[in-house]
């Protein structure tokens, strides 16, 4: 009782301070527990390496050197974090409305493939590169958006589980690309690897000025910021949060839950599709099996580590970009298979999800009022 009286008696300014302190404590929890999970995974992975007779310190040194050590490796890392930011956004946005979508890889492949296929007549017709890139990017975003949008629609209209259907759609997307790349759209001058016709140097998307990193990074960062604002500072974002928290309550409030679900999924697919566009226009120069590089799957882990916060996705994506980028160096220097990075990722993911159970267990992160009561 004394506590309630005390609370009623506090002036507004102090209440605001109290709110702030609650927010700071909660944010600290959201940072501290994932960091703790990362540390635990690093320890477990070190034990794994030790059991195999490999040196953990050499491994982590190589990750730092291969991912961040030199200007070249840092740019390589940033280059790889661009698609990771985009595919992580493809997980984070639907997660806000309560959907677990793991089909970013499929939207990336379909977006990239559609962009490459559509570019062929434009390249042949000598269209201006700027216009070509614009049309390619819009196509990729649209195709990716529709691809995941279908998943959202099926979820809402038929109750089809979105996790399974989005992964099935990934396999279907890869099969569609293979079907065309090995058949109608195959570049016959390239007998080794079935691919679409190359874009050619004139149509390759350039690097950002002063760097060796393509524009996908800038677009990813800007999109992350825009989506953060959209999700936290707009009516749309509020509606998404309500629908994600309790769909039935949202429906009772007259929110168009189905529409919100489909829009979230389309935004997600558009992000992953754009990642495909950048892979085609800035890295590969054509669509082929190299598009299936696992960015969609690493993006899932990035989004979960960032707790589906678009801004937090940026640093986490750069960290995992570095781990992916150092894979080759680790393979050569330590004689470890290329799947080493996969093991590290899988282990981190498992530990991270296990750490979910820690939320709310540490008093230091809780609002002081609850501390008093206990």
């Amino acid at each position, binding site marked *: 009782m004394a506590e309630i009286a005390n609370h009623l008696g506090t002036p507004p300014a102090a209440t605001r301070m109290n709110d702030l302190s609650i927010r700071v404590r909660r944010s600290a929890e959201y940072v501290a527990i994932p960091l703790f999970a990362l540390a635990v995974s690093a320890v477990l992975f070190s034990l794994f390496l030790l059991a195999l007779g490999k040196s953990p310190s050499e491994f982590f040194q190589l990750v730092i050197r291969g991912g961040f050590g030199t200007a070249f490796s840092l740019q390589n890392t940033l280059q790889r974090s661009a698609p990771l930011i985009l595919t992580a956004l493809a997980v984070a946005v639907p997660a806000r409305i309560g959907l677990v979508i*793991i089909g970013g890889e499929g939207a990336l492949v379909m977006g990239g493939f559609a962009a490459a296929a559509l570019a062929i007549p434009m390249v042949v017709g000598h269209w201006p590169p700027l216009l070509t890139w614009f049309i390619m990017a819009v196509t990729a975003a649209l195709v990716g958006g529709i691809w995941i949008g279908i998943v959202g629609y099926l979820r809402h209209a038929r109750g089809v*589980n979105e996790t399974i259907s989005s992964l099935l759609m990934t396999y279907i997307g890869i099969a569609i690309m293979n079907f065309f790349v090995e058949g109608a759209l195959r570049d016959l001058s390239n007998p080794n690897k079935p691919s679409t016709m190359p874009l050619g140097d004139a149509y390759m998307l350039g690097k950002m000025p002063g760097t060796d990193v393509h524009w996908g990074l800038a677009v990813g960062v800007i999109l992350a910021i825009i989506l953060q604002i959209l999700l936290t500072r707009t009516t749309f974002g509020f509606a998404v949060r309500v629908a994600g928290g309790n769909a039935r309550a949202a429906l009772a409030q007259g929110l168009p839950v189905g529409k919100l679900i489909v829009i979230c999924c389309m935004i997600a697919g558009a992000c992953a599709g754009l990642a495909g566009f950048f892979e085609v226009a800035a890295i590969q120069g054509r669509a082929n099996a190299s598009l299936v590089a696992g960015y969609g799957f690493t993006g899932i882990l990035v989004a979960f580590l960032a707790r589906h916060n678009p801004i937090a996705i940026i640093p986490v994506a750069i960290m995992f970009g570095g781990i992916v980028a150092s894979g080759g160096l680790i393979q050569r220097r330590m004689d470890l298979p290329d799947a080493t990075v996969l093991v590290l990722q899988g282990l981190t993911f498992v530990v991270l999800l296990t750490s979910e159970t820690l939320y709310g267990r540490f008093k230091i992160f809780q609002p002081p009022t609850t501390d008093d009561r206990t």
Partner: protein
Amino acid sequence: MSDSAFAIVFFAIVGGALRVSTPFMFVALGECLTEKSGRVNLGLEGTLVLGAMTAYAVSYHSGYPWLGVFAAGLSGAVLGAMHGYICKLPKVNDIAVGIAMMLFGTGIAFFFGKAYIQPSAPRLESFSLGAWTGNQQIATALQINPLLLVGIAVAILMAWAFANTKWGLIVRMAGDSAPAATAMGVSVDLVRFLSTTFGGFLAGVGGAFLSLFYPGSWNQGLSSGQGLMAVALVIFARWSPVRCIIAALLFGAAGAIGPALQSVGITQGYYFFNAAPYILTLLIMIASAGSKRAMRDVPGELSITK
């Protein structure tokens, strides 16, 4: 198409269905058991891949393929136990953990499997259902493996146990209503842990079939989504082990169309037929999700259909 070519395609699809369906069958049975207890394990794709690698490695080193099958089951049980243990902690989401286990299982399998891509391990023997026709091609097409029969036996046993035994009742109760099970003095967490572990064992055995019989070698592209499709298949089979068998055969037939047509020289649209099982799964999910019959049979505690 001539009559004999038609017969060959037909028997190739039937034989292919029997072959291709076996891993589906084991994963679906494992998932069926897990889901009956009220939990979803989406990680069985990773379990399938790890089982395939373990079976191949053990068969290669020991020379006994059946020892490989058993080891594959054990590796699957370990992954299942991990999933079961983690998911019993409060606030942990079983679907998300499944995705993580999928990546983890695949990663471990690829990591240790690299050494076994080249060497060839002793495979499981098979016998032919088509020897009576006297046609060599048909006899080859209808080669089947004892594991198929084991799978069918497990399904029948499971269906009987769910309906008639105390253990079956406990599993179903944990899946339908955790409060009711708790009130009866049953530890829901323990039941789900054991169900997930044994479900993982079955999925691991399914993986052994992939590497030791059909396609019969170990490589990184061995399973592409079979484990996941099997999870979708359980919904279609409405959580009945016997219907799981029928659904698995249907999936096997869909997967066998492409190779069967290829065996008589029709290669057009090969990649399209490759996509057939995924498209079929999706269509089946669309058709069966939200149907009244599925809603009646779904275990009440399941998060996947909510």
